[in-house]
């Protein structure tokens, strides 16, 4: 039996701590997963020292995509914004604490993709960002 839907993930899906939109913000990016219509937007406030002062996400989608966004945002607050560039697929999986097949991996990694595209200041979010 898989533990994809253990309480931790359902909790973050149903009661996200970091859902919202920051205005003003220094970084804003959004994208969706066309396969299933999942959508994530992130907004970050970065201070003069280059630390993430605050961050929020909003969007809609499956429990995996929304819970991983909440966990990811939680993990970057107070950390150097440059550090986000180093985050990998494995970091997201570690946050979730589960194994995922290829289809659901896309759901889990959408928020990281959006976050990294925003930090790099890219025009679009590509899969290479989360390889």
């Amino acid at each position, binding site marked *: 039996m898989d533990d*994809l839907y253990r309480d931790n993930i359902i909790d973050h899906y149903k009661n996200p701590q970091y859902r919202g939109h920051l205005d003003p913000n220094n970084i804003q990016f959004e994208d969706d997963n066309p396969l299933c219509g999942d959508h994530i937007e992130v907004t970050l406030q970065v201070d003069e020292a280059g630390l993430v002062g605050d961050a929020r996400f909003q969007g809609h989608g499956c429990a995996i995509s929304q819970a991983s966004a909440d966990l990811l945002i939680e993990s970057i607050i107070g950390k150097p914004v440059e550090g986000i560039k180093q985050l990998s697929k494995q970091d997201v999986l570690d946050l979730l604490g589960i194994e995922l097949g290829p289809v659901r991996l896309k759901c889990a990694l959408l928020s990281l993709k959006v976050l990294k595209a925003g930090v790099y200041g890219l025009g679009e979010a590509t899969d290479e960002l989360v390889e």
Partner: protein
Amino acid sequence: MSTTASTLNLSQLRADFPVLNREVRPGVPLVYLDSTATSQKPLPVLEAMDDFYRTKNANIHRGVHTLAEESTAMYEEARAKIGRFINSEAAEQIIFTRNATESINLVAYTWARVNLKAGDLLILTEMEHHSNLVPWQMLASERGIEMEFIPVLENGLLDLEAYRLQLGRNPKLVAFSGMSNVLGTITPAEEIIRMAHAAGAITLVDGAQLVPHLPVDVQALGVDFLAFSAHKMLGPTGIGALYGKMNLLESMPPFMGGGDMIKTVHQRSFVPNDLPHKFEAGTPAIAEAVGFGAAVDYLGKIGMNAVAAHEKEMIAYALDRLEEIPGVKVLGPAAEHKGAVAAFTLEGVHPHDVAQILDRSGVAVRAGHHCAQPLHEKFGISATTRASFYIYNQPSEVDKLVDGIYEVKKIFG
């Protein structure tokens, strides 16, 4: 759990489908509710293809040795069977393609590129699968052709009054699905075709869902082109068919160039072959054609009226059970206008999560937009969970689906 009055002997019939005996994981039997995506295959189909490779296998139409002659005969016999299955006037009007998608593209690339010009109108519906939408979008943007869409009403039926008005603009082609792969809507094909013809338009029916599930008589329908796929009707993947009216097929230029589609070839020119070979370039899917023939034999033996009656009972029971679940909303019309497809939303839970949790109990359903993104947009939803039923499904499997949905609700409580 209910029992059906269906005339099918389900336990005997299910024994013909080896995959239905498998467990998804130890102790969890498969409940296959994804036949709208692709159907499972019965032993006679598997055996026909296996036997072909074991005892016949040769390339067709050219060889004079025994195996080549036998293979050619089997390939052509399959064509004849498929022709009879839909009551085609002649076997030559059945063109083998890779699938319904390729059949539609064949018409878009040959008939349409000769007969449609800038400013011409073609009519589709709002419930088309991408396979009967994107080929026309490509043509429209290449040639400056206009498109209109018969609206889908809130109840999942087509707005034929709007269609009547659209016909006033003298469309050249009306191309529509015989049965929606999402809503399950069985469109009034005969009426749509009659109205189109009265307005001087040619008609194409995307029969990918229609032909596997309901009796189809192309002569009674009067349809000009009918596209369908083997794999959705108990046959193998990689083969489909296009039926066309003889005069249209004869007037159309070839589709792809290569061997077998030619009569004679010179250095700088060629003469196309006769029907149906004109549209079948290169070595076709021979074993798959044999399997396709075995599939229509199998369906023919059961009888398409019995198939349709069984599915009608299945969808009626499924709608009853699904609609009793708080938070579940099934898309599309009531059972009387609906094939055995139940696409639904569950309040507060994404379809991917529903499908994944159902898989735990062996229930295989599809989650997503089912290659009908514009239709989902129209209904303001990004995705649905879809359970679909075929001849081998039984009411107890609907019960397992419903139990699974209650499990989803418990987890997401």
